[in-house]
């Protein structure tokens, strides 16, 4: 508790007529109240050691990680680690520059080649993070007088991409094909339009009705961008995402993805079918005006992506884990974000912040780490514990997790 309390301590306010920091007083008070109630801060977890994709040491305790985006468990893959070590030895620790100038090394090109192979598409562009990929592509692609039509539950990086650009922004109700159709129908015919969708929505773990949505977008002459951050590696025959599973190859103009989830490192990308896509490199500010990824990162990414193409056993095991956790929690009487296991994310819906934090802490003390998520990150003002599965979770680990959910849920009074 000491470090939390200290971090929250408010020193004397500087003597200025308008303290710009005072707008955060509400947030400071809320966190202080949380700290005073004696619970651990869910947003200040430190992993002292990481033993595998599924186990870390937190406050000296060995803990099962059930709240990372390491869906395919690639972070400790020996080939991936070796590729990173080799790149460190051969190319040094960083690039010191932008992709446009001195920041493109052999392995940045190789990571883009690996993406082209993975998606069987002609164009790939690697960004420094997934956030920057959305920021860059969305803000650059759609200009003044043109329209971006996005799902209301879109990720912050999509909203921020809209805010950075000059386009007109139109929202539709989450996953509603009818709502999208109506809104597209009300827009003027002439200007260019981009419909922005996500394969898997990361808070509840629900998937988009992409087939119907892409058909509606096409009907109204709009281009389509799908963010497949939370589906890469285990949706569709080649692991390309929900769009592949829905049979939409060739019908999605831009696919956004990340290296920080199934790929197991950090970085972002866009792949595209568009013949003029390469022009984006010359216009996209979040691509140009930031440092490129270190050589070791792109080398690990390239190796991991190529291994993911053939990771059929891992995929199968990940889906098995998802079904088992979803089934087990449902049987105990928990309310979950989706009726069926739709992805590798299982969200446990709770009634308020107090209940969510108490259950979260009880699980953590029993050696199970999950994410506590709250508004504004969550839809419809919900408080939830988000579990995300990994292909490397063993059957025994899932058994342990289920047992702890039962004990903790009964102790906190969430389940009977």
């Amino acid at each position, binding site marked *: 508790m000491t470090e939390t309390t200290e971090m929250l301590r408010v020193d004397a306010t500087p003597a200025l007529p308008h303290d710009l920091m005072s707008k955060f007083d509400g947030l400071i008070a809320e966190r202080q109240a949380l700290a005073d109630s004696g619970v651990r801060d869910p947003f200040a977890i430190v992993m002292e050691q990481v033993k595998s994709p599924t186990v870390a040491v937190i406050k000296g305790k060995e803990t099962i990680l059930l709240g990372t985006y390491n869906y395919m468990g690639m972070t400790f893959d020996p080939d991936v680690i070796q590729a990173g070590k080799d790149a460190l030895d051969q190319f040094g620790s960083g690039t010191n520059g932008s992709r446009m100038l001195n920041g493109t090394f052999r392995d940045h090109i190789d990571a883009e080649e690996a993406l082209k192979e993975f998606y069987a598409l002609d164009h790939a562009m690697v960004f420094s993070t997934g956030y920057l990929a959305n920021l860059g592509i969305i803000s650059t692609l759609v200009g003044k007088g043109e329209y971006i039509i996005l799902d209301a539950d879109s990720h912050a990086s999509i909203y921020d991409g809209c805010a950075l650009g000059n386009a007109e*922004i139109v929202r539709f109700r989450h996953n509603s094909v009818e709502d999208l159709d109506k809104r597209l129908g009300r827009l003027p015919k002439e200007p260019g339009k981009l419909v922005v969708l996500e394969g898997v929505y990361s808070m509840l773990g629900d998937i988009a009705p992409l087939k119907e949505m892409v058909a509606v977008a096409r009907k109204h002459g709009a281009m389509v961008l799908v963010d497949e951050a939370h589906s890469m590696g285990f949706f569709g025959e080649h692991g390309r995402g929900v769009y592949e599973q829905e049979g939409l190859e060739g019908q999605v103009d831009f696919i956004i993805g990340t290296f920080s989830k199934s790929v197991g490192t950090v970085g972002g990308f866009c792949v595209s079918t568009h013949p003029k896509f390469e022009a984006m490199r010359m216009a996209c500010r979040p691509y140009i005006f930031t440092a490129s990824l270190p050589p070791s990162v792109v080398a690990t990414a390239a190796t991991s992506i190529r291994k993911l193409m053939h990771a059929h056993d891992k995929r199968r095991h990940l889906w098995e884990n998802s079904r088992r956790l979803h089934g087990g929690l449902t049987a105990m009487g928990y309310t979950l974000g989706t009726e069926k296991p739709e992805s590798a994310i299982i969200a446990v819906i709770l009634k308020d912040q107090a209940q969510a934090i108490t259950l979260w802490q009880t699980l953590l003390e029993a050696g199970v780490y999950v994410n506590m998520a709250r508004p504004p990150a969550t839809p419809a003002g919900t408080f939830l514990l988000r579990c995300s599965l990994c292909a490397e979770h063993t059957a025994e680990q899932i058994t342990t997790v289920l047992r702890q959910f039962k004990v903790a849920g009964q102790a906190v009074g969430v389940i009977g």
Partner: protein
Amino acid sequence: MTDRRTVYETITGLIEPFNKKGVSLADATTFQGDLEWDSLTVMDFVASTEDEFDIIITMNMQAEIETIGQLVDVVMKLKA
């Protein structure tokens, strides 16, 4: 065709289900300050207003709208 009073009444009618505090409504009533709506309520309300009038109120326009009166004016303009 549509007079301002009709639009105003339709909009206040749409506000009612979201007016949990029973705030009395006027042209100068603000969505954030008086009605204390969060971003999710705004989203729901905007969607129902759009559907009622068969219009699009872009997020760019929404950023400029603070009061019921301003919303009525925007709807009048879009329906003109």
